[in-house]
């Protein structure tokens, strides 16, 4: 009875946001979008109930000793030797993090109701938020790599759509597309890992390559296999977690509405990569070189982000870099083989950072109150660190931080020649078709503008 109740609660935690997404999406597609009041009431009810379901499940997991409990939602499809099983995994890691996810999403949904009141894209925002919540819950509760990938893609698309939410201006759209480009490129790592795992284990189920229970494992993969899988997963993490050299997109992502920035880049989306690496801990244990790379990238990102964040002049970007610093440190912890500390770090950081981002529109008011309370200007922190460096070095570091280490320019240096080559190929295509079509012979022009 208890196990069936436990399973039903975990299934409900996925089913409720999915039902909300379906309801809001269908209403929009039928050109009958729900009113703000109804949308808000449904969102509160769904995320409240989902949080309750997960809390009860987490409570039940203690007497049931659910250290590694898999829940099958059935075989989604079967073809030849490939069987795609919709499989969830309920263990301390997934239950803890999914509960945090739903609580924070619920808080953000309540906040968004007022923040976006009478905004023309109110309904569009909530559809994207529901898509995100379903995606992140799939990533966290997944019991197989394919389910992770499905959720991962949903998180990516909803993120790009919300960055471009204020789409009347070109900048949010450009930044949404840039972020999506980084996501799509680094998602290849996760896709590659999924295909490789299937190739090795003939299934994507976690049991087959992560061992019996998290965090011990041990992974049955050989050291070489684990290194290949781990490297691909780390690549995916670098993109989603905005780690070096892909950090530039995070500041661009601040173009989205503040509540979505809070939940995506303060709390959950930015931690999705770290969560993935944490889940894949047993694979990293088998691949010390990849774990070392995680430490290097994490440390590099933490140094980069703390420097750049200190030179930013707007609060959202400064908070984004502060967030990045912590994610970098979490990656270092994971790379060093710690498992519970990074989890606790993620829970604490996600909660504090989303609160800070949600408060950021009231920053001036908050500062004023604080200054009134202390009876003067607030003291500037960190000066003793700056004094350790000579002024010339300080100026250079400041200039580098202000330019955000020119990371996006570096990426553009890779992209621009590739686009140039494609444009040259396009010209060739046009010439070939013009020649074949006898344009020179009869003088007629090939229309080029669609």
């Amino acid at each position, binding site marked *: 009875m208890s196990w069936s109740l436990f399973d039903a609660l975990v299934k409900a935690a996925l089913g409720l946001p999915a039902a909300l997404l379906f309801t809001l999406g269908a209403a*929009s597609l039928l050109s009958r979008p729900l009113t703000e009041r109804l949308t808000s009431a449904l969102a509160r009810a769904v995320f409240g109930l989902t949080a309750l379901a997960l809390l009860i499940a987490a409570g039940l997991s203690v007497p049931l000793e659910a250290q590694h409990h898999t829940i099958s939602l059935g075989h989604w499809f*079967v073809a030849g030797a490939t069987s795609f099983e919709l499989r969830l995994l309920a263990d301390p890691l997934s239950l803890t993090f999914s509960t945090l996810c739903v609580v924070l999403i619920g808080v953000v949904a309540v906040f968004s109701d007022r923040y976006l009141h009478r905004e023309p894209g109110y309904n569009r925002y909530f559809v994207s938020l529901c898509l995100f919540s379903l995606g992140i819950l799939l990533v966290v509760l997944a019991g197989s790599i394919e389910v992770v990938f499905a959720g991962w893609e949903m998180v990516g698309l909803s993120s790009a759509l919300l960055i471009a939410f204020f789409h*009347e*201006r070109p900048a949010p759209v450009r930044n949404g597309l840039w972020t999506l480009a980084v996501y799509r490129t680094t998602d290849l790592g996760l896709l590659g890992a999924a295909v490789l795992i*299937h190739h090795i284990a003939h299934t994507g189920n976690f049991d087959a390559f992560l061992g019996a229970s998290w965090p011990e494992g041990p992974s049955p993969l050989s050291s070489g296999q684990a290194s290949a899988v781990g490297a691909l997963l780390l690549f995916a993490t670098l993109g989603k977690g905005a780690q070096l050299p892909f950090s530039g997109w995070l500041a661009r992502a601040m173009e989205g509405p503040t509540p979505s920035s809070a939940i995506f880049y303060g709390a959950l989306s930015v931690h999705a990569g770290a969560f993935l690496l944490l889940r894949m801990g047993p694979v990293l244990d088998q691949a010390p070189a990849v774990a070392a790379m995680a430490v290097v990238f994490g440390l590099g990102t933490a140094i980069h982000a703390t420097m750049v964040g200190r030179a930013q002049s707007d609060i959202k970007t400064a908070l984004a870099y502060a967030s990045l610093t912590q994610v970098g440190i979490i990656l270092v912890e994971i790379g060093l083989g710690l498992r519970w500390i990074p989890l606790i770090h993620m829970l604490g950081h996600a909660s504090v950072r989303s609160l800070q981002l949600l408060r950021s529109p009231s920053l001036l008011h908050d500062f004023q109150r604080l200054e009134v309370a202390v009876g003067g200007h607030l003291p500037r922190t960190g000066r003793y660190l700056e004094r350790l460096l000579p002024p010339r070095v300080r100026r250079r570091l400041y200039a580098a931080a202000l330019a955000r280490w020119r990371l996006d320019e570096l990426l553009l240096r890779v992209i621009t020649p590739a686009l140039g080559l494609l*444009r040259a190929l396009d010209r060739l*295509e046009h010439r070939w*078709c013009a020649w074949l079509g006898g344009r020179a012979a009869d003088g007629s022009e090939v229309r080029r503008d669609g």
Partner: protein
Amino acid sequence: MTAELTFPLLSLMIAVPLVAALATALGGTLVTRRAAIVAALIDVGLAIAALVVHLADPSLALADPLDPLTWLFGHPVLRLDRLSAPLLVFAALISLVAVMVAPRTALRASLLRRNLFAQAVLLATFATREPAVMAAMWCLGALPPLLELRSAGAAGRPALRVFAIYMGAGAAAFIGGVALTGGEHGLLASVLLVLAVMIRKGIFPLHSWMPELFEHAPLGVSTLFNAPQVGAYVAATLVIPSEPAAALDVVGVASIITALYGSAMALVQRGARRAYGYIFMSQSALVMLGFECLSAEGVTGALAFWLSSGVALAGLGLALWVLEARRGALRVDRLHGGYERTPLLATMFLVFGVGTVGFPGTYGFVGQEMLLDGAVHVFPGLSVAVALASALGGLAVMRIYFSLFTGAPAQGGLTQRLHRRERLGFALLGAVLLVFGIWPRPAVELQSAVAAELLRARAVAVEGR
């Protein structure tokens, strides 16, 4: 003993659009449109009936007393099997939606009659496995786009020539391949058939006609010509069962290159139509890749992706046609704005767009998962290129979406909301994409059985050789 059902289901399906085209020969645009919608609706109904009958008892043979070519070949030419039954529904559905959403400003009675003709030819192609009939349908199928390009006058002439050269070469190769099959020149027949399929599917380097056609012909016509992917049907029925593995490997590698090249080229296009043409080329090439894997996963994935990419690409092309009718020529190197004037069309465009590149929740995701699984065993190194093609394709789709629907709102613009007919048409395609995306099991089971049949037929042919 095999049970037999005598009913002219298939010949009726082919005759209905032809009768509608003839009956409206002198009619105006609106009458012809109404007739075309009714004809397509009847065809969808008949095709669903055929599918249901076949699924209820797969051993039941359908005898068509009106099969028009039995006297010529000495045996029935029209047949219903596991492969053709869902394809007929797919073809009839795309034809129906193409006529339902056709914008009034772009409509002419002649275009509608050509679409009716194309519908009949398409259904006849999917209802037969007789190579000679398929060759004839192959040639007839190219007529509607040819006539449309000719109607465009001097502006369409270069594209007409490009299309005619490629289609002429493809038809010659197909007819040659069919004629030589079974004779002394087996190898030449194989090469010709493979070449024909590569041309018709727009596989690199024989692809240049495809973006040209999408750029210059009415989108309804070019979509109806390409979305059902007749080349894939020829590959499934004539190439997979008998052609040498080396030929299939060549097509497989060429398909991977096409997928990558098409999705990358879509990123640098300025015109929306041409960008769509490259996305089409890229994603539909993945179907061929799955076939060439010759594994249960690969072929099932190819069949699934054939239907999903066909539906999604058709939806994307038709949405572009509808938008173009409201706004004129569309570019993708600037932001057009106007989301608030066409929110539903923007949403549908997004759904079809992400469906095209296999986003979770659409049937394309299912097909792509199996395709990649199949490809990694056969082309382990090159499967990275498949994943990259998918990534770039997704980016290209989103670039088009953002450029067409985001940007500063148009001041004082009239509403451009979809009509009920258009909404219904897009909803039909969207529902197919999403319902099978969420509940793919029945479709995959059917396609898995078809894949097993195709692979069995190949094993028998290889053994016989």
